[in-house]
């Protein structure tokens, strides 16, 4: 309908993938192909990187429609707040999301991903059309997992990080699947100067993941795309969640809820807490 009425030039959504447990991003240009679109709990990958790609590859004025579950809608809102594109360049097709599964960790309908278990925004905050019914938001403390982790002794927490980072092969699937990792040139791809080594040894992988966590602080919408993208199961979204809480407590800012609010790391106030300054 959006295509027929010329309200959008192309639609980015999901189609059934290599098995019934998987969905893959698809670009639809003609009304006749709309039947390929699906939405269910196999639709894990964030479509936001694909929307950016489509906006860059098409002439100015092209309107890109994107199927947006809660987290992806928030990522689009956050990118608009960060001035990445204008609201009228995207048509947001909102869908309520009951959480997604990972094909490696269970069949469709089995086990929701960790970020979905703690999700409080199953519906996009902004949309142009909404398909289906909105989903009731989960209740309880979304930071309970972080609080649980913080109870561990410092050495145990570090051991956990070392174990997770030890799996990393520097493929950058997490970064490329992330809706908020959109730097034109990532710090790890700079060679002059070379800010960090390119090996898959732990000091280098650690630095990469710490830089990424800090650079997505106050911007991450906890969609979990990074963890689902990782081919070897590195689970670091908890670190992002910890930083999300930090930004919310210190600056009262939650990413992806408002297109007008100034992002936490793009502003300052003299009242900002600075007890860490010497």
């Amino acid at each position, binding site marked *: 309908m959006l295509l027929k009425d010329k309200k959008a030039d192309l639609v980015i959504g999901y189609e059934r*993938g*290599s*098995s019934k447990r*998987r*969905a*893959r*991003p*698809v*670009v639809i240009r003609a009304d006749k192909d709309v039947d390929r679109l699906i939405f269910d709990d196999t639709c894990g*990958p964030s479509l936001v*990187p*694909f929307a950016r*790609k*489509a906006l860059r*590859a098409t002439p100015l004025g092209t309107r890109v429609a994107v199927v947006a579950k809660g987290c992806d809608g928030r990522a689009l809102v956050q990118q608009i707040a960060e001035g990445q594109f204008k609201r009228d360049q995207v048509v947001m097709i909102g869908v309520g999301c009951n959480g997604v599964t990972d094909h*490696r*960790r269970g069949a469709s309908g089995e086990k929701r991903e960790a970020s979905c278990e703690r999700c409080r925004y199953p519906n996009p905050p902004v949309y142009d059309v909404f398909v289906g019914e909105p989903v009731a938001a989960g209740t309880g403390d979304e930071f309970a997992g972080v609080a649980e982790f913080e109870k561990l002794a410092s050495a145990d927490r570090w051991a956990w990080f070392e174990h997770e980072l030890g*799996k990393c*092969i*520097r*493929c*950058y*699937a997490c*970064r*490329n*699947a992330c809706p908020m990792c959109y730097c034109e040139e990532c710090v790890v*791809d700079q*060679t002059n100067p*070379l800010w960090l*080594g*390119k*090996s*898959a*040894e732990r000091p280098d992988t650690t630095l990469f993941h710490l830089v990424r966590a800090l650079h997505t602080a106050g911007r991450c919408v906890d969609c979990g*795309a990074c963890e*689902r*993208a*990782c*081919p*070897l*199961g590195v*689970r670091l979204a908890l670190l992002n969640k910890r930083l999300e809480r930090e930004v919310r407590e210190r600056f009262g800012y939650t990413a992806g809820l408002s297109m007008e609010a100034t992002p936490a790391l793009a502003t300052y106030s003299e009242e900002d807490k600075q007890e860490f300054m010497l």
Partner: protein
Amino acid sequence: MSSSLRIAKPDLDQLVSALTSRYRLFGPVDVDGSTVLREVKSADELALGAALDGSVKAAFFPQTETLLTYDGTVSEAPSGRDKPTAVIGARPCDARSLLLLDKVFGTGKYWDPLWQRRHDDSLVIGLGCSAPLETCFCNLMGSGPFDAEGSDIMLTDIGDAFVAESCTDKGERFLKTAYKSQVQRPSQADLDKAGEARSKALASLAPAANYSGVKTALAKLWDSALWDEIALGCLSCGACAYLCPTCHCFDVQDETAPGTQQGRRVRIWDTCQSALFTKEASGHNPRPSAKDRIRQRVMHKFSYFVDNYGEAACVGCGRCIRLCPVDFDVRVVLERVIAEGRRTKDKERGTKKDVRHAG
């Protein structure tokens, strides 16, 4: 030449200790639900049932490898080795990939001493695939779930035991020395079970599509808009290349401690999907877009490698599909390449016909 024996699963440790006494042994190990290749010391570490997520290439071509160290002057990296390398539980696709990599590093126009140091005198113990996955397509790449090519010994899971068969002289010699006295020969029932596992596995694979036209089609499609379409479904990360058993491109970096002349020269896996892969010192990049890069990946595997070594650099393990964050499917790419190639040919013919008619 070939001999076979029965190894009850609880007795697998005997095989593993025979291996570790002579070899540096690598095998599949479970890490939080992923199966990765690690050095192993005992049979309980092994996760032989699962599909290996990281490929076996890391046993011979590690992701990060010091080539030499220096402190003002160059000192060579240690060239000796304690023991030769062995791999247990290599699936037939992976075992075959080692032969392809050996064409690049070991036996071709160029030879790589680091590869040779590990690969020479190595022993590969294959494990037949009783239950191929939906993403497996070894049969489309000219192989099969029990293909012995590349394995010195092949294991077949028959439930409570493995049937081990030697496939090379090296494998035969190893089995003879490792099992001098307590050899248990498989019974007819065991052999029947093994045969059944084989035919069941074969039947479960998708019928063999014909990819023989891929290379010819690729030759016509350098400028095709098909690559723009294909690139739309790719995140341009390196997951496929780093998990691929035949991808072998690498980067070389000098890491010098600041303010000193001390450092190391290190070889690290690299991927053609990274923009940095072809970025030149001037800043120019001959492969500036995702389209250029995904085309390179397909061309290298299915065209250039065929030119250089006579076969495609793909063994159909399916990791690049199964572990792709966005379910990019190389089988679909190959089908589209063939279809597009055919269309391009038809168009050319059509044009000629039109010209004749006009004449």
